[in-house]
């Protein structure tokens, strides 16, 4: 078959009945790209000799090196079947789990799928996944059982064994389809029942339960793969052969005089040929006869392999060749590698492209035959029912189904992904001279591409497109940024569902949240995309600058594309992030988002090697985000640039892309910083070996006091009593504060954390009130605030918390965190933080703030921001101020007489501020200072220190961020999943079986700190049968005490003297401390005697 010109393809595009949009799906390494190669070779784009070795659609360098496909790429092929000519838009997809997002993007654009299964490996995890994906998108699959040659050459099966093997594989595939089908039926049934319940039509009288589950009623025979249905091809893409039953039926009906229809039905299955009676009989297995399939089909292939590959029998080969009526070139038959000869014979005898393409043309639907069900599914976003969409939108369904390319038809295009193309590779940027030179160069080096190049040249001589190119060139040149450097341009991977797309046409870009009803009501009737639509949310306009025909590595320019075709659109990068729906009709709803089988889960922090290249990195990551459907990029509060990818291989590809294409700088990827929180807990009742703890606790505290005193850490200003109350005096002995730390109940912490927004507004209101301004607060915020107060009151019950809510002094850190400062000072009636609620009685506000009230708060804020364990923020701690004495006897003195550099800069800064604002307010009364700096500053430092000591007086614990982890796994790998979870300190919450399948859904929690490499490990251990998803859920206290050392006899026995065996909290704490450059209590050298005695140079 010769190569096809661009004009031919353009003309074919106009006939949607003869268009097939299909993708090739399979598990990794089952031969998708090889098969695609064979199909591409049939169009003369590459030499059939190289088919299977070139992997034409793997255009990336790393794809070629690694030997796996990493992106989906499309190519348009021409095929004439019978008297019809077909246009096939073929999309090759990757098989690796990490790139299943690419599969999603491919599946969305297609009407049919070719599922490839390895004849040896059978159904693999990804095979199941792709079948499910095809199922979910309602596209029709056909099956190719590939690598049959391996059965002969590697496994050395007899033809009979091979037949049973193939039968098994077919059963496996059908089993997967069957499960999908049953689960769908069950789901539908459940939905129906729910609806019934909602309607309240409970059949009260009859209790007869319907056990049939509706499975029997629904016919599912058309779903299954069976050779006699004509939707299965047996092939060996690498050797270039493949056949369907139909072909053999055709051959034998002529040769044996049996009707073709009979052969079609009996060639696959338990039938045998009774030679004497010349009849086909049933029950081959029972009678020990060879089934028809073995006798007529497999035996022939086996004998061919036997002759050519295994025995290399020259004479027999010649006999076979002549009997098959194929011509073999002398060069091939003399070749030392028998495979060459084999493929030369096979590709003429049973060309794989013929078998696959004819099956595709016959069995897969054309764009015209799109199922109405699928259209409705595409158009109804989320939980919305199709019926609920506006009427005009529902009318569009007919446009979909007609798939007409008339002028009037509304244009509907779906962009499933954006891919980056080097600007130089675009057809309008390739200059003629350069192209010619490249051609001559390529001609020498690469003969197989000859035909393709000639083809391209012909296109180039097309005068219209050339002039368009020139126009475009000048247009582009006028943009200054274009000239700077060869930029990456984005081309949208899209499909036209209705109407004709023209170059430069203006269309609406519909965001995923766009509501057609809203758009219709605001837009005037019959408006077009060129009008101004700025006011409608999630709707924008753009023009399609360039249209391309996707030809694998090449792009060809097009002027217009009619409905039903896959195409590339240039110039959308400003408007479309990853996927979008384009339409000329505002009534069109955005399509349902792609459903991704793998969610991004592997997180790494990315940094440039040279800090000055930060802007380049950010730009590169932005581009990467657009180019990859599955990668997520975010900047965290810590300033880290985090890249989230689907897996290790995907990560590697993203990093390579970033390095070589998008950012063009050296980068390094590392484990992201893991946040922790510090908290205190109630003193434990039992010790580590479950012994009752009595008075020991108090003893321990006393012990601590003694220890501190002995080590000289405790000064005369600090006093710690046995109940955990810390009293601290400022260095100038003027002020004394007594503070106690109390753990907050868990529910309170959770409440405070979830209502941080409310607390923040509360704080703003208080601030303005203090200044004497009255701020207008909406009723809703007031309600929210009083609601919070009521909830707090209900949660803080008991003697200890009596009246606590009223006494709240502040929240921290940053004034809205999950820690509380409590006012328990006797005789200090401070205006409550809730004062905005009781605005009626202003009289109560007479109780003014005491001096330096702000200093206490600031000290608390600083203490809450970084705890004593590893300088991480506190959480769920209540500091109760029980004593606060100030002697204001010092003579007033000017404040700035002393400069104090030794104290914390921030503290001093703040102290100055407090001091100054208060002095200004009260006419410089208390601006007393001495050699220790201003009083307010000292007080801040004192409060901060006191808080820290009070914190340390309680049992301290570390809080770890936790992920909830949802794992889908089959029953046979459950044990390994549990193993991985256990190893990483995970905890299984519950597991349940998904109805109608053998999949289990396990819900577990896992510390974020342990999640690095988790996805990879779990996939490896379960051979890809379990796929986890991680979502941040909550903070959890790590139960072990980081400072714990064995004290009792039993504990010594259990944990040894050092007790450093498995203290999770200590491990985390030390890691953080080491990262921050804080002191870690660790010996530099473990054993003094085991040091090297030699000098450095020896």
């Amino acid at each position, binding site marked *: 078959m010769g190569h096809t010109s661009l004009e031919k393809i353009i003309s074919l595009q106009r006939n949607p009945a003869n268009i097939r949009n299909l993708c090739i799906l399979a598990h990794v390494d089952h031969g998708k790209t090889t098969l695609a190669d064979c199909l591409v070779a049939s169009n003369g784009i590459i030499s059939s000799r190289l088919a299977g070795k070139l992997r034409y659609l793997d255009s990336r360098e790393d794809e070629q090196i690694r030997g796996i496909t990493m992106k989906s790429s499309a190519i348009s092929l021409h095929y004439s079947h019978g008297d019809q000519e077909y246009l096939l838009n073929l999309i090759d997809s990757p098989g690796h789990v990490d790139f299943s997002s690419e599969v999603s993007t491919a599946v969305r654009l297609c009407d049919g799928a070719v599922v490839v299964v390895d004849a040896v490996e059978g159904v693999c995890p990804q095979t199941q996944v792709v079948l499910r994906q095809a199922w979910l998108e309602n596209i029709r699959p056909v099956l190719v059982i590939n690598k049959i040659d391996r059965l002969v050459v590697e496994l050395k099966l007899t033809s009979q064994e091979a037949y049973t093997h193939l039968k098994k594989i077919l059963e496996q595939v059908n089993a997967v389809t069957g499960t999908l089908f049953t689960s769908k039926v069950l789901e539908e049934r459940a939905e129906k029942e729910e609806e019934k319940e909602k309607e309240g039509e409970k059949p009260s009288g009859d209790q007869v339960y319907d056990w049939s589950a509706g499975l029997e009623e629904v016919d599912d025979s058309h779903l299954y793969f069976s050779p006699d249905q004509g939707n299965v091809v047996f092939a060996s893409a690498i050797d270039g052969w493949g056949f369907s039953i139909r072909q053999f039926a055709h051959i034998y009906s002529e040769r044996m005089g049996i009707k073709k229809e009979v052969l079609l039905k009996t060639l696959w299955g338990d039938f045998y040929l009774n030679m004497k009676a010349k009849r086909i009989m049933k029950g081959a297995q029972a009678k020990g006869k060879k089934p028809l399939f073995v006798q007529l089909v497999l035996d022939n292939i086996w004998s061919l392999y036997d002759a050519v590959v295994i025995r290399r029998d020259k004479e027999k080969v010649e006999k076979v060749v002549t009997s098959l009526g194929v011509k073999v070139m002398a060069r091939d038959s003399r070749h030392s590698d028998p495979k060459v000869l084999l493929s030369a014979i096979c590709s003429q005898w049973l060309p794989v492209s013929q078998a696959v393409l004819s099956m595709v043309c016959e069995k897969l639907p054309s764009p015209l035959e799109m199922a109405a069900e699928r259209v409705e599914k595409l158009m109804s976003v989320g939980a919305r029912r199709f019926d609920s969409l506006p009427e005009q939108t529902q009318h569009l369904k007919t446009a979909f189904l007609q798939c007409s390319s008339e002028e009037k038809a509304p244009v509907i295009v779906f962009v499933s992904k954006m891919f980056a193309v080097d600007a130089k590779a675009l057809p309008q940027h390739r200059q003629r001279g350069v192209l010619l030179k490249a051609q001559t160069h390529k001609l020498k080096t690469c003969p197989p591409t000859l035909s393709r190049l000639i083809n391209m040249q012909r296109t180039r001589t097309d005068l219209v497109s050339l002039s368009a190119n020139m126009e475009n060139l000048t247009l582009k040149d006028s943009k200054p940024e274009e000239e700077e450097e060869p930029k990456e341009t984005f081309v949208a991977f899209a499909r036209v569902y209705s109407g004709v797309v023209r170059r430069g046409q203006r269309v609406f870009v519909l965001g995923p949240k766009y509501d057609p009803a809203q758009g219709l009501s605001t837009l005037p009737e019959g408006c077009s995309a060129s009008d101004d639509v700025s006011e409608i949310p999630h709707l924008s306009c753009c023009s399609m600058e360039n249209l391309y025909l996707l030809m694998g590595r090449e792009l060809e320019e097009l002027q217009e594309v009619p409905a039903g075709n896959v195409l590339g659109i240039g110039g959308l990068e400003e408007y479309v992030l990853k996927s979008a729906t384009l339409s000329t009709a505002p009534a069109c709803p955005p399509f349902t988002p792609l459903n991704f089988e793998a969610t991004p889960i592997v997180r790494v922090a990315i940094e440039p090697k040279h*800090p000055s290249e930060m802007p380049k990195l950010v730009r590169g990551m932005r581009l990467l985000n657009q180019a990859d459907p599955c990668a997520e990029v975010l900047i965290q509060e810590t300033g880290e640039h985090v890249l989230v990818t689907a897996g290790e291989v995907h990560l590697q590809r993203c990093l390579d892309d970033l390095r070589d294409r998008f950012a063009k700088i050296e980068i390094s990827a590392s484990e992201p910083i893991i946040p922790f929180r510090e908290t205190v807990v109630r003193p434990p009742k039992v010790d580590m070996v479950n012994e009752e703890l009595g008075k020991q606790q108090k003893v321990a505290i006393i012990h601590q006091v003694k220890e501190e005193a002995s080590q000289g850490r405790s000064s005369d200003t600090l006093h710690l009593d046995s109940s955990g109350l810390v009293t601290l005096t400022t260095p100038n002995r003027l002020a004394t504060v007594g503070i106690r730390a109390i753990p907050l109940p868990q529910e309170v912490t959770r409440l405070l954390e979830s209502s941080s927004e409310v607390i923040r507004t509360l704080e703003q209101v208080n601030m303005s009130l203090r200044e004497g301004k009255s701020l207008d607060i909406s009723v809703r915020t007031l309600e929210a605030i009083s609601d919070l107060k009521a909830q707090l009151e209900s949660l803080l019950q008991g003697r200890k918390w009596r009246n606590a809510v009223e006494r709240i002094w502040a929240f921290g850190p940053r004034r809205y965190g999950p820690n509380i400062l409590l006012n328990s000072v006797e005789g200090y009636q401070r205006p409550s933080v809730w004062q905005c609620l009781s605005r009626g009685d202003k009289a109560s506000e007479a109780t003014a703030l005491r001096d330096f009230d702000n200093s206490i708060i600031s000290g608390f804020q600083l203490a809450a921001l970084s705890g004593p364990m590893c300088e991480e923020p506190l959480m769920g701690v209540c500091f109760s101020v029980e004593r606060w004495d100030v002697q204001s006897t010092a003579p007033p003195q000017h404040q700035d007489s002393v400069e104090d550099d030794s104290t914390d800069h921030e503290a001093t800064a703040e102290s100055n501020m407090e001091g100054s604002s208060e002095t200004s307010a009260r006419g410089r009364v208390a601006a007393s200072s001495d050699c220790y700096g201003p009083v307010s500053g000292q007080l801040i430092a004192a409060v901060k220190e006191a808080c820290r000591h009070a914190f340390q007086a309680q049992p301290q614990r570390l809080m770890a961020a936790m992920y909830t982890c949802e794992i889908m796994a089959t029953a046979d790998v459950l044990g390994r999943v549990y193993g991985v979870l256990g190893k990483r300190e995970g905890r299984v919450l519950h597991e349940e079986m998904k109805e109608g399948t053998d999949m289990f859904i396990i819900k577990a929690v896992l510390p974020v700190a342990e999640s690095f490499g988790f996805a990879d490990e779990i996939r490896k251990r379960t051979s890809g049968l379990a796929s986890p998803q991680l979502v941040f859920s909550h903070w959890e206290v790590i139960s072990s005490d980081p400072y714990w050392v064995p004290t009792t006899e039993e504990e010594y026995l259990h944990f040894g003297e050092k007790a450093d065996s498995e203290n999770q909290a200590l491990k985390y704490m030390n890691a953080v401390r080491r990262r921050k450059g804080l002191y870690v209590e660790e010996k530099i050298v473990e054993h003094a005697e085991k040091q090297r005695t030699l000098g450095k140079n020896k």
Partner: protein
Amino acid sequence: MSIFTPTNQIRLTNVAVVRMKKGGKRFEIACYKNKVMSWRSGAEKDLDEVLQTHSVFVNVSKGQVAKKDDLTKAFGTDDLTEICKQILAKGELQVSDKERQSQLETMFRDIATIVAEKCVNPETKRPYTVSLIERAMKDIHYSVKPNKSTKQQALEVIRQLKESMEIQRAHMRLRLVLPAKEAKRLKEKLKPLLQVVESEDFDEELEMVCLVDPGCFREIDELIRCETRGRGSLEVLSLKDVEEGDEKL
């Protein structure tokens, strides 16, 4: 002919000497290398892992043991272990290689942490990560001075880093309230100190919200307090003006 056979001589290898002068005499003890600092910080609790021998010397390298009389005279006890502990705690020592290395490393990290805390990327208003700062510090070949405080050094590092990368101290957001009379004059004086003036409201008083470099805070504070004689006021709205929350690109 007599052959010198040192039967009872203990050769000390890997010695770190800790010296102390007391009562006019010099005393030394023989310790293992890289262990004394751990003892002082409390990480090492086993004395035998620190001391080579429990005896007190006058000169370790010569092997001269201190006389008992001198010890009792200087320390008031002849319990060698007790004396060793005293010398360990207060004596002067030569810091060993690994000790020095780990000390410098911690300080380096500490400085980087402080810099990362105080600074932002002026374009995005987001902080840099510690590891990036560390790398930048290595790029400018910053060497840590062990006897200077980390905070001081951090400020110095920021100044040096500014030349090679986009970095600045996170601004403080201040609210200034100036009385009408002095407002104009003061504003002129304040102008060079203020980085960004976010809002300005002039009716009875001049109220300004602005971003300033934390280094200028004292100056501004002083200026306002002196010039307005307590009628103007200054309030810190936030210590660090940074972007909060995660951002998706």
